[in-house]
């Protein structure tokens, strides 16, 4: 080996390596300032997601199946009008009386949701004498504390925000659809235009401005109650809801810990 690969050259390489390392923080700072300049948005200022914890309560006994929430959600969030895409929808449960001779408390259960309930429900064709009980159940993203959808996402496009919403970053989403399969409540769908996963955002653009989500805003019977766990008031509607009702969550056996609480649901509701 000749002397060209000497200590001098060696030190030179080492020096340049250290130089690169020193340049890293500087580059990082420069980049974030440029980014901040370029990405000024119309987002409300002064909203701190760490100071809120949103949740929704649904009293099934109050729901009259008018479908105004579904309509408002579609309009507010510009969800595709086609009857396959819903961020929230209403299901009508019909539990029939058991057939004569059938040793059961309840008969057959049928669930329907014409156009998600957006246009209201046509009167059921099942004669009243055959119905044991019937009721409407509004459905939406269950705001799981341990959300299966964000665990399934291979690119980290779905995430749980500090304020309790589960959002999709459309810039990261590759449209693989794993989250749609992972959601046990069927609350996700593929946006037909952008081909990215879409779901209830809890009307994130509204709640950050101090408004209620669109579905809660238009609900005529106060079936949906929206609240903030971190900013409970005296006689908070959420607290009243929990005090006055037997409160359940959907599919509790899955351990998803939903923050959408249901009151007065039957075991048929899933």
């Amino acid at each position, binding site marked *: *080996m000749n002397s060209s690969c000497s200590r001098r050259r*060696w030190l030179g*390489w080492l020096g340049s*390596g250290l130089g*690169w*390392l020193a340049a*890293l923080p500087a*580059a*990082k700072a420069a*980049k*974030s300032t440029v*980014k*901040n300049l370029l*990405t000024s*948005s*119309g*987002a*409300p200022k002064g*909203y701190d*997601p*760490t100071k809120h914890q949103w949740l929704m309560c649904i009293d099934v006994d*109050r729901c*009259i*199946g*008018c*479908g*105004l929430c579904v309509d*408002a959600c579609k*309009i*507010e969030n510009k969800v595709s009008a086609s009857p396959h895409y819903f961020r929230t929808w209403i299901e009508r449960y*019909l539990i029939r009386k058991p057939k004569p001779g059938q040793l059961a408390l309840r008969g057959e259960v049928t669930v329907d949701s014409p156009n998600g309930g957006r246009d*209201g*429900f046509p*009167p059921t064709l099942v004669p009243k004498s055959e*119905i044991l009980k*019937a009721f*409407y159940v509004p459905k939406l993203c269950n705001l799981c504390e341990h959300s299966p959808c964000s665990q399934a996402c291979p690119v*980290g*496009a779905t*995430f*749980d925000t*500090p304020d309790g919403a589960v*959002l999709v*970053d459309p*810039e*990261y989403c590759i449209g693989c659809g794993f989250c749609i399969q992972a959601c046990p409540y069927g609350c996700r769908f593929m946006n037909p235009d952008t081909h990215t996963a879409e779901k209830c*955002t809890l*009307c*994130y*653009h*509204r709640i950050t*401005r101090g*408004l209620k989500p*669109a579905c809660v*805003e*238009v*609900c*005529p*019977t*106060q079936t949906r109650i929206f609240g903030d766990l971190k900013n409970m008031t005296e006689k908070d509607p959420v607290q009243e809801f929990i005090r006055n009702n037997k409160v359940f969550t959907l599919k509790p056996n899955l351990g998803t810990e939903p923050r959408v609480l249901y009151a007065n649901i039957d075991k048929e509701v899933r």
Partner: protein
Amino acid sequence: MTSPRLPPQLLRLVLLTLAIIGTYSVARVFLTPATFGQFGHYRGAALEEAASRPPVYAGAKACDECHGDTFAQLTKARHRSVSCEACHGPNRPHVKNPDIVPAKLTDRHCVRCHLADAARPAKHRQINLTEHYPNEKCLECHVAHQPNQSK
């Protein structure tokens, strides 16, 4: 030679490794979004982007600002639990420009909630369209805000 020297083939390997790690770290700095990791393992700006869309439904408070008298009347009426925009439709355009008139009420609005169905709670007022004045319009008899009052 007294000092121990790195064999040249090893030296080349070390330099190559350093170059790869250096390129990776520099590329990572530039490819990672600025707000990544602000709240968790995701782009913090995504929250802001989700929040940046303007609302379409203005909210009852916005209605109260101009229509305070009607709003106060409604709080005593039978339909007090019904929000303005439930019947009158999304009205942010109207709030921004009062010349844009909200959609007119039709009978469809009434029937949506009050058509008789087995799944509706029994205490909720319901009508059968074939029995309850089939040829009349709802609003010919009923006042929308106080429906048990006749015109």
